[in-house]
């Protein structure tokens, strides 16, 4: 039975259903409601865990890491400045190859200060070696959080579940919360093989000479590539239980014979899908659900037959251009007849992404063939002359 729930509240339920023994977090908008809801579940005795209310995100990630090493399932969540403060620990967690799940309630990174949504924060740590999954809506955020534990524990890799701040975290929707039996059936109790244990002492996190470092990185890279199959398997297995499926690595919709595609990640997809139907546009919409591992093969298949592909993303590399845009361009350049790639940043720092975006983008690529990159929705009249 669907219940009307705020995204953050639903995520708190999803986390509790996964039975982590240690949760540690530090408040930051728009992640705050998630940890507040978890705290309440703990206070009401509905969720048994050690909730460690730390003094910083740096410690939030560190506490979760220590907990996993001592043999517990753990959880943390953050956003924006918090993700950047955690960055050093995030690399360390992934490099140590430990299973952990965190939510990133995507938010812009300061300066200028903004509490609103874009995806610059998770993009800033894309090379940390975590699996990154981006959710289109709150039902997917709930289901992906549960799937993430299974993926993480099967791969011995941490998973960051990216959920657009406010757009999803603060939105009330009718949602299905799975039952404890369903989740227990899907996610078995887990024992981490490299748990610290006085009966069988190991040393972890040691200094590695140049003789071994490349090999460690190779193994880590391979583990991420292999994780693609686990992401698909977890989505399929969850679909068998719940009836909900998210396409594994990516999702696409629209006519088979479309020659123009629009690719994005996260909640923009819903807006584009609605705009496509309303405007009856003959475009293929592609949504990457997995950004790490980057689904090259699936993307090449999804882009087959396209002459033009527009990449819309909520982040950029200033002085470079689109981040997702560049990766898509590189992956598709291997095709015999690669589509022309148009890379645009949109919806930065909470800028509204209206239904009219799709039509506007399709017009723009007609007007400016070959445009490599731009921030799409800049209102030039607000800028001083020299910056226009």
């Amino acid at each position, binding site marked *: 039975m669907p219940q009307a729930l705020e995204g953050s509240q639903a995520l708190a339920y999803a986390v509790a259903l996964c039975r982590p023994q240690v949760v540690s977090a530090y408040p930051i908008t728009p992640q705050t409601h998630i940890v507040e809801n978890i705290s309440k579940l703990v206070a009401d005795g509905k969720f048994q865990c*050690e909730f460690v209310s730390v003094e910083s995100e*740096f*410690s939030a990630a560190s506490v979760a890491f220590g907990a996993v090493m001592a043999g517990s399932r753990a959880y943390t969540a953050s956003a924006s400045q918090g993700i950047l403060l955690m960055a050093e620990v995030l690399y360390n967690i992934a490099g140590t190859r430990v299973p952990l799940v965190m939510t990133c309630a995507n938010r812009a990174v300061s300066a200028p200060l903004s509490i609103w949504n874009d995806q610059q924060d998770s993009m800033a740590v894309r090379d940390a070696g975590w699996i990154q999954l981006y959710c289109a809506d709150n039902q997917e955020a709930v289901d992906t959080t549960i799937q993430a534990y299974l993926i993480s524990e099967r791969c011995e890799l941490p998973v960051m579940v990216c959920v657009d701040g406010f757009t999803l975290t603060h939105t009330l929707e009718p949602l299905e919360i799975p039952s404890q039996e369903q989740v227990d059936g899907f996610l078995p109790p887990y024992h981490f093989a490299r748990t610290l244990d006085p009966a069988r002492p190991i*040393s972890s996190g040691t200094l590695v000479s140049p003789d071994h470092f490349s090999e460690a990185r190779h193994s880590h890279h391979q583990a991420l590539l292999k994780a693609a199959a686990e992401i698909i398997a977890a989505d399929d297995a969850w679909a068998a239980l719940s009836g909900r499926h998210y396409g594994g690595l990516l999702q696409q919709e629209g006519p088979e014979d479309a020659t123009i595609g629009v690719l994005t990640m996260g909640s923009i997809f819903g807006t584009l899908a609605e705009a496509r139907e309303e405007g009856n546009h003959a475009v293929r919409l592609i949504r990457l659900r997995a950004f790490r591992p980057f689904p090259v093969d699936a993307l090449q298949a999804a882009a087959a037959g396209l002459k033009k592909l527009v990449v819309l993303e909520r982040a950029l590399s200033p002085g470079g251009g689109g981040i997702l845009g560049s990766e898509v361009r590189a992956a598709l350049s291997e095709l015999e007849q690669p589509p022309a790639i148009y890379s645009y940043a949109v919806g930065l720092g909470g800028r509204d992404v209206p239904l009219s975006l799709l039509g506007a983008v399709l017009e723009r690529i007609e007007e400016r063939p070959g445009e490599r990159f731009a921030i799409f929705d800049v209102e030039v009249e607000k800028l001083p002359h020299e910056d226009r």
Partner: protein
Amino acid sequence: MKRDEASNSIAIKVAELRRRPHRFQGLASGHRACLGCGEALAARLVMEAAGPDVMIANATGCLEIFTTPWPESAWRVPWMHSLFENAGAIAAGMEAALKAQGKTTKVLSFAGDGGTFDIGFQSLSGMMERGHNVLYVCYDNEAYMNTGIQRSSSTPHAAMTTTSPPGAERMGKRHLKKDIVSIVAAHHIPYAATTSVAFPTDLRKKVRRAMEIEGPTFLQIHSPCPLGWGTEGEESIAVGRLAVETGLFPIIELERGQLTGVLPIREPKPVIDYLKAQGRFRHLFQDHYKAREELEHLQALADHNIATFGLAGQGVDRHDSSGINRVQREGVRSA
């Protein structure tokens, strides 16, 4: 073993000593520390007293580096290193997990003075404030040794490091050594204490004490570093003793923020004896008024410590700075 009350001494048969079980060796030999490294010896002593049912979160620093060159490790207990500034938080996470699992293994956190006084201070403070059952051990060698002897907020006033070099305008470090144990004690944790690797009996006793306490405990161990202090490897213990006997490094215990114990100094030595033994204070012995001023300043700091903590001994005491090292296991050989 026989005790003679009249002479206050104990006769020990060597054969009997040999039959006793060895102390637990949690840190094995064969690691890569410099000759005479105080930190290495201190860690060995901590492990002897802490025993095998522990789990260690070690910050980046010399101890971490010299004990674990992949694929080797000198640790015989579960041990992990994550980063420089999160040993307190990693330990907190371990403790939370063990608590959730109903396990009683004690969590220890190991860090140098840089990882404790400076960059790791926040995570240490958070861990203590939340009351985690963790023994945090700071191996205080008074500088960032692992990166090649740079100043930390533990470096003593006037000491030379590569980032506090003496020169025409400077007499070494300009600032005072941070009083970390008082700051830690201000968290009102059950037990915070200082000790020195030059006083192994005191060190082991304090580790055992802390191990028995449920809650956050803190031990600051003065650990001479021959490389960083400009001494010979075989002088570490002698130099460590002088730091205590001059009053520059007070050995104290604080419970819930209150001073509850000190190691009395039998005969306070002049700080010059300590300073002249080390290369890092060499510039203080040049013929210059600023050097003389700094020597006076350091003596005043030592006198201040002796007065503030009541370190002056009251005659011969087998538990004072001269007596305590003669205490052997549970008996007194001679006072």
